[in-house]
């Protein structure tokens, strides 16, 4: 390191470092204050999960309401686990997530490998651009795309069913097809994104490895199994851990807007996130909503740590932390 710096430090003593620290603190300040108010302050609100939240009429404010609400122990949690709908929403949340983690992984790794094999760079770029497009749209917009096909009177599918003399399905009343519809919608929106992530990892692989493999007589298939997949492993694992950490959190936008808030569909479209929202806004059951959110957070945290520690045991380098 250059000498002048040392001498300068020696002369100005601790003052310069102190000034630097203060200036850097002012840089962190806006972000830190935001995090404090919008992320840490609500953490104290978790106590609501153990209370029968009522508005304190004499002097209503959030703090007063919380202080004067009666503590009810674990009653809110009991309610969540004893209603018949609750196990459905838990099943839906975990089921969809597990299925989509797996499907998304297989489809996007396959697509990424396919994309990397296309020799015409322009075509590859075109594919990439088109399949990434849905990622940029909101679920509200996507819900109208779905509506265009499934609308009970004018939808394309309904019209086709009519003209083929089939029984017309009332898509927004019949919950059976929805697991398939939601799965397709989810893949449609997210596959492009993860494909591009995997493709970036594939393009980072040293081509000489493939050349060596092909000289040794490895077929294309063997090259994929023994060169490409092992190189993708860290990426697959990272995305896997992150997704497992979110296994109790559903994509709210998808489950809220695509089924158009249709009651008959709840058995297959209600997830914990939509339940939390409905409990909070529609039935105004703040305590239960908070309790459900808390369970989500704790389970998510445990899953994240669990997945990470399993990965660390198997392959130390791939783990997240």
């Amino acid at each position, binding site marked *: 390191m250059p000498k002048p710096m040392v001498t300068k430090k020696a002369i100005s003593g601790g003052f310069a470092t102190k000034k630097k620290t203060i200036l850097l603190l002012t840089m962190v300040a806006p972000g830190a204050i935001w995090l404090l108010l919008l992320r840490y302050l609500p953490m104290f609100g978790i106590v609501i999960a153990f209370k029968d939240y009522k508005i304190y009429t004499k002097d209503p404010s959030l703090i007063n309401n919380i202080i004067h609400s009666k503590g009810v122990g674990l009653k809110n949690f009991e309610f969540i686990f004893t209603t018949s709908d609750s196990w459905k929403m838990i099943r839906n949340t975990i089921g969809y997530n597990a299925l989509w983690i797996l499907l998304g992984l297989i489809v996007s790794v396959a697509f990424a490998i396919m994309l990397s094999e296309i020799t015409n760079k322009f075509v590859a770029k075109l594919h990439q651009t088109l399949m990434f497009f849905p990622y940029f749209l909101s679920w509200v917009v996507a819900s109208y795309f779905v509506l265009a096909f499934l609308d009970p009177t004018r939808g394309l599918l309904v019209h086709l069913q009519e003209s083929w003399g089939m029984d017309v399905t009332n898509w927004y009343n019949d919950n059976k097809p929805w697991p398939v519809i939601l799965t397709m919608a989810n893949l449609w929106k997210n596959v492009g994104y993860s494909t591009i992530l995997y493709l970036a990892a594939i393009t980072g692989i040293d081509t000489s490895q493939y050349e060596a493999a092909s000289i040794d007589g490895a077929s294309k298939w063997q090259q994929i199994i023994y060169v490409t997949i092992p190189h993708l492993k860290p990426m697959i694992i990272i995305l896997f851990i992150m997704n497992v950490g979110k296994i109790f959190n559903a994509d709210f936008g998808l489950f809220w807007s695509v089924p158009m808030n249709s009651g008959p569909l709840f058995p297959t479209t209600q997830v914990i996130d939509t339940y939390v929202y409905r*409990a909070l806004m529609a039935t105004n059951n703040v305590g239960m909503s908070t309790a459900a959110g808390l369970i989500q957070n704790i389970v998510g945290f445990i899953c994240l740590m669990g997945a990470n520690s399993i990965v660390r045991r198997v392959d130390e380098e791939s783990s997240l932390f």
Partner: protein
Amino acid sequence: MKEYVTTRRRSARLNSVSLPVEIIINIILGLFCLICVIPFIFVAIISFSSENSIREIGFSFQPVEWSLEAYQYVLDLGDQLWRSYFNSFFITIVGTSISVLICILFSYALFRKDFKYRKFFTFFCFFTMMFGGGLAPTYMVCKNMLGLSDNYAALIVPMLINPFNIIIMRTFFQSTVPTELIEAASIDGSGEYNTLFRIIVPISKPGIATVALLNALAFWNEWFIAMLYVRDAKYFPLQYLLMKMQNQVDFLVRNSSVIGAEVTKIIGTLPQESLRMALVVLIVVPIAFAYPFFQRYIISGLTIGSVKG
């Protein structure tokens, strides 16, 4: 040189998949790409179909009759729509500017290895990715304590910070800004803010563009925040207006300048279906046009964010 290129290409050809396989690959990917864009094209076609055509044969790729009436209605009854268009642009521009500024400041301090509280603030930020209060407490704090209700702040403030963007920005600083540069600037007597905005920011433009675009996209597509904190139609962004129209097609008319008996009359003649689809088209068009230009930045950002996150 030329010879080198051809031999390279030949060797690349040698180890590439056979032509039939490549054709199959192209067909599979091509089909998926079609699925990705066809819904939008379909909705656009519906928006240009006449109401008669829709009544007769439903939504179709080949309407019996084309028509601009949906867009005509949008122009005539557009008060709420223009208001929402303005809101969306306003929120996107103001929100993106503020959040990028906060993100640059925060991640720059985290990037500085000589920052005394670096470890603390890194943890302070990234812990929120793993644990939080949940929706209900966050909602109550924002609404009751911070006054985020029926104002523009309610649509901007809750989205200002995303730890992912801080990871992206910090990683970008780490990979492009040499520590010697900061030391040299400090020796030359440049203050911390001067160093950041005169020296670091100009060389970090690609990273800043990435974060800015990710933010802009998030603000443009946001409707959940509006659903939580906004009741007054004056503040509805486009996406939420569209959300509202899922159940109440006449929402647009009821919130226009038309009054009294006229309202029911207009609602009766409204080309409801094509009107909704026209609104979808008007939301997607800005993204569809801007997308090819900014996808490069978004890709680089998302790649960094997911690998380091």
